[in-house]
Structure formats: C-alpha cells, structure tokens
C-alpha cells in the first residue's frame, strides 16, 4: 500500500477522492445504461452499483470489527488487514494509533519496572496497603521482615499475616506519629515500623531492621555492667580488709601480713584489668600497625616458651614445633601479647600433667601460630562467644586463675589489626586448639628479610 503523508488537506483528499470516484463510476454507468437500455435499466444499474459499494464497505467494516475484538483479547493483536480505497486511510490511522499506544505502554512499563527495581534495592521494607488495609504491593525487604510472599499474599489483610501484638495494637490505635518498635523475644529480628499516610485513607508501612543496632546497644549495656562488676569485686575485698583494720587495730603481725598480701593481690588484679581495658581501647582507636618492624619468630617464641615454662613451673609437658626462619612484620609488642595470651591461657586452664604443644608454620596463605592443650575442652555453645569481653565459660574458675576476662578479646583485636583472625577448635574432654592466623603479607622468611 502507498504511504500517505499526514497532512490535513492530503488526508481529506485521499479519504474523499476514492469515495467520490466510486460514486462517479456508478453514476456514469447508470446514466449510460439509462440512455442505451432505457430508464428502468438505468435505475437497476444504479441500485446494483450502490449495493455493491455498500457490500464492499460492510465487508471492511466487519474486518475492522473482528480485528478490534481480536486485538482486545490478545496481548499481541493480529496484523491489520490492508485496505482498499477509503479504507486504506482508516487502516493506516488505526495502525499508527496502535503503534503509538504500544510505545507508550512500553514506556510506562519501563518506568514502573525501574521504580520497582529501585525500591527492591532498598534495605528498608515497604508495604503499600489499600483502603481496607490489604497488601497491595511490597518490596523484597518487607517480605523478609514480615515473612510475606507478594505473589501469594497480595490482597490479604496485613493484620492477618503480621500478628505481633504490638503491631496490631499500633494498627488499631491509628496514631502513627511515633514509629513502633517490634521487639522479638527470640531476638533474631528486631524491627522499627512506621506508617505513612498516603493518598486518602491509604497507608504505606516502612520497616527497618534494627537487630544489629539493638545488639550493639545490648553489648554496650552488658559491657558497662561487667566492667563495674569486675572493678567492684577487688575493691570490695580491699575495702573490707581496711574496715577490719580500722575496727580492730590490734591484730597480730602475722594476720596483718596475710591481709596485706591479699590486698596487694586484689589491687594488682584491678591494675591488670585497667591495663587490659586501656590496651583494648588503644587497639580499637589506632589504625593498622605498620609493616616496618620485623620480629624474628625464633626469638619471640622462645621468649614466650620461657615465660610459659615459668608459669607452668614444671606441671605441664610443653613441646614446640617452630619454623625458625619466619619473621613477622607488624607491631612486635602486640603480637607478643597476643601469642603470649594464648600460651598463658593454655597453661592456666590445663590441669597438672597435661600436654601443651606450640606450633608455628607458614604456607602461601600465611602463618599459623597454634597452641594445642590437653585440657578439659570447651563446649560448642561457648565457642562463638569466647572472644566477647568478660565472657566466661565457668565463672568461678576463671577468677581463681587470675584472668581478667579480656585476654581473648585483646587477642582477637590484635590479630584483626594485622589482617588475621583467631580460630578455636575444641572437644570436651579432649582439649582445645587456638590458632592465630596471620596473612601472607605480614610474614617473611628470615633469609629474605635479612
């Protein structure tokens, strides 16, 4: 079919010309047959011609109609029939309108998709409710927050699916000026929820996962409670003895000496605790240690073994397998403190006669300093919490051995600052292995470093 430029004049011309042309042809033949065959045949010809024309138009009208029906049923409508005469322009315009609609709906769809993708990427949950508080749409974060599935739950009442009593009360109270905090008794997921009015009488629910925030908050509270408790215990002892000495000035020298020894012991304990706290806060605030200082593993470990031997006083069998050629790059004092902590823990917690083996080896991945003991072992539920400050597996025993409860926290921090980590494996009744892993960048062979 021929292209017709869209211009009002040409459009009119192209629409009307074929029509007038057909009428003209019919009129011409009718007049001719009227002249040749007589008046009656003229009318007959005119009627026949006009009926033919009406039939022709009816045929195309039917095709347009069936096309419209099909195109409203199908997603992709059948191709428009090509027309003839005036119908050609009609079909052409229909096709143009159709294309324009398709383009527009594609644009709208794309905008909508972009919007949905954008809101899916949000870490906060969004639920859009309709007038009756039914779920109309929600993003994936909201699905995980409330255990919803958009495909399945669209159109369900939000109150039927989110049943936390605090949430339903908030929904009923309809005072949304303050955000709602939904506490979770099993503390796996704490949420802050806010309702936003939207259009008229509609609501959007925003939900935010505050689990980590709550956990940090709880840790801070626990830490302060623990520190005060740990500091108060020795202070109570010292204070008690001082009170006793004030009340009874005439105690025997022997008794006095015993009291002094105990007070000294407690004040040293406090001192150690405060030193550890200062170490921890220094470790937290400083940036990663430089690579400049190189520490010979041979010297470091042999010093540590001497100290451990002194602490053990012959009660344990201490053996070592040390790769003598290694050199560490980092803060020497910190590494000594980290490794020393692991070793002194092993000596403290392993009963007399136990075996402690120290190993230092290196691979492409880095160096591993490990301390294995044949002590009582640690139950699996304690393992993930061991490096928490003041966490104690057995409260009564740890204080006896003189620990501050901060040792492993310090070890963990030091290793983290050097890009390494602490691995703990333990079997109850068999013993434990504490492994300090340092990355390859922090380790060198002595031959290269020298």
């Amino acid at each position, binding site marked *: 079919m021929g292209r017709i430029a869209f211009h009002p004049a040409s459009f009119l011309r192209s629409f009307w010309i074929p029509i007038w042309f057909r009428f003209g042809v019919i009129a011409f033949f009718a007049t001719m047959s009227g002249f040749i065959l007589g008046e009656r045949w003229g009318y007959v010809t005119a009627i026949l011609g006009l009926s033919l024309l009406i039939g022709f138009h009816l045929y195309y009208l039917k095709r347009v109609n069936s096309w419209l029906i099909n195109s409203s049923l199908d997603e992709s409508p059948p191709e428009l029939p090509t027309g003839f005469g005036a119908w050609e322009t009609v079909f052409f315009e229909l096709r143009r309108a159709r294309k324009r609609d398709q383009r527009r709906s594609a644009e709208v769809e794309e905008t909508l998709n972009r919007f949905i993708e954008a809101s899916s990427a949000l870490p906060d949950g969004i639920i859009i409710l309709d007038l009756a508080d039914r779920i109309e749409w929600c993003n994936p974060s909201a699905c995980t927050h409330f255990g919803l599935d958009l495909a399945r*739950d669209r159109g*369900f*009442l939000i*109150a*039927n*699916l989110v049943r*936390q*009593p605090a949430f339903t009360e908030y929904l009923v109270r309809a005072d949304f000026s303050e955000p709602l905090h939904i506490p979770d*008794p099993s503390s796996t997921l704490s949420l802050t929820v806010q309702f936003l009015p939207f259009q008229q009488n509609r609501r959007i629910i925003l939900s935010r996962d505050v689990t980590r925030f709550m956990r940090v908050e709880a840790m801070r509270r626990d830490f302060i409670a623990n520190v005060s408790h740990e500091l108060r215990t020795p202070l109570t002892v010292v204070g008690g003895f001082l009170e006793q000495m004030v009340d009874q000035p005439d105690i025997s020298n022997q008794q006095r000496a015993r009291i002094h020894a105990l007070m000294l012991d407690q004040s040293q304990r406090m001192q150690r605790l405060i030193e550890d706290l200062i170490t921890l806060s220094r470790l937290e605030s400083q940036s990663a240690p430089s690579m400049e200082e190189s520490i010979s593993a041979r010297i470091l470990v042999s010093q540590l073994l001497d100290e451990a031997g002194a602490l053990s006083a012959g009660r344990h069998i201490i053996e070592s397998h040390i790769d003598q050629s290694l050199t560490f790059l980092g803060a020497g004092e910190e590494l000594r403190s980290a490794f020393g902590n692991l070793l002194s823990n092993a000596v403290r917690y392993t009963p007399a006669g136990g075996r402690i083996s120290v190993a230092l080896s290196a691979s492409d991945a880095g160096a591993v300093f490990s301390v294995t003991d044949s002590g009582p072992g640690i139950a699996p539920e304690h393992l993930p919490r061991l490096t928490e400050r003041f966490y104690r597996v057995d409260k009564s025993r740890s204080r006896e051995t003189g620990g501050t409860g901060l040792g492993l926290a310090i070890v963990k921090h030091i290793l983290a600052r050097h890009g390494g980590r602490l691995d703990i494996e333990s079997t109850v009744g068999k013993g434990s292995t504490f492994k300090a892993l340092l990355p390859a960048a922090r380790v060198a062979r002595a031959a290269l470093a020298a």
Partner: protein
Amino acid sequence: MDQTHISSQFDADLEDIRTRMLQMGGLVEQQVRAAIAIYADSNLGHQETIKATEVRINQMEIELDDRCTHLIVRRQPAAGDLRLVMAIVKTITDLERIGDEADKIARYAISMQERGQVHLPGFSDIHIAASTAVSMLKDALDAFARLDVSMAGNIVLQDKHIDNEFRSVLRQLITFMMEDPRTISTALDIIWIAKAIERIGDHAQNIAEYVIFVAKGTDVRHASKETLEQAVAS
C-alpha cells in the same frame, strides 16, 4: 440490592472475626515465645507480661466465642462460611489452651530457677522441640490466614518430630534421675515443660486440621497419612 448489602455486611463481620482470631493467635504466639525465653535464658523480665497477656487471651476467647454465636444466630451461614465459623470457634479453644500451656512452661521455669541450679544436660533437645512448636503454631496461623491447604498438611505431618523429641527427652531424664536422685525435682519440672511443648504442637496440629476442613470440607482428624495427603491434593 438489599440482599447484596446484607451479604457484604456478613462478609465484613466474618472477616473481622477471623482477623481478631488471628490477632489472638499472635498474642498466644508471643506468650509461648516469652515463656520459652524464661526457661531458656533464665530471663524473668517477661514474668509480668505473661500474667497480663494470659488475662487478655482469656478475655479474647470469651469475646470471640460470643461474636461467633451471634453471627451464627443472626446470619445463619451455610457451606464454606459455616465451616469457617465452626473452625474459628474450635481454633479459639485450641489457642486458649496453648496460652495455658505457655503459662505452665513459665511457672515451671520459674520454680526451677527458684530452687537453684541443678545442671542437667539435654536442654538442647527441648530447645529444638520448643522452636519447632513455635514455628508450627506460626505456620498454622499463617495457613489459616491464607487458607493454605498444603502448608496445613505439612504442619500435621510435622507434629511427629515433636513427639519424638519429647520421648527422647523423657528417656534422657529417666537415666539422670536413676543415677542421681537429687536431680528428680528439676527433672520433673523439665518433663512438665517438655510435655507442655508437646501439647502446643498437638494444638497447632489441630488448627492446621481445621484449615483443611475449611478449605476442602474434609475432616482429617485422626485420619491416616494417606487420607490426609489425598485431602490436601484433592
């Protein structure tokens, strides 16, 4: 015109009752979690909330029962609607019982703590059973909200796990009691708690069976596994 008005009002009433029942379910769910937290973490902070919630659960039971009776008398529901109302009436009873069981768990947990620490291993089995029971209850209520038959079917089959868990706890505790009679009173408390958890699982299973009844019209109580699967699949 008038007819549609009445029936839409009826639908709204029915939906409202269901929502309230599910809210009661949410309250009961929280109650169970709080009770288990008392046992698991020795966290006595929930003690007061549990008492207050227990009172509210009982009030809701009475109120919902009354609403259901009124609905039946005034609207005379039929077919699916009647099944729904009947299921709600029964579910309320089960929910209230679950609330009572939670109360029991809290009571025994507190008495255990007041008596002092007698450490008995095997707590982890009860933890597994408790979290299974809580998730069964949650799933049962979810299935009720969505009238999701396949989910309900899964819950019914899940109850076996809790029963097994209960038996294994029982066996363990019997051994401990035989070895050391001093553990008997604590072990008995733990048994009561385990029993309460097992009962919560049973009630959750009942609720799941009502869901199948509402959606399919088949009563699957005391039915064999095959009948149940057939009802779910039909």
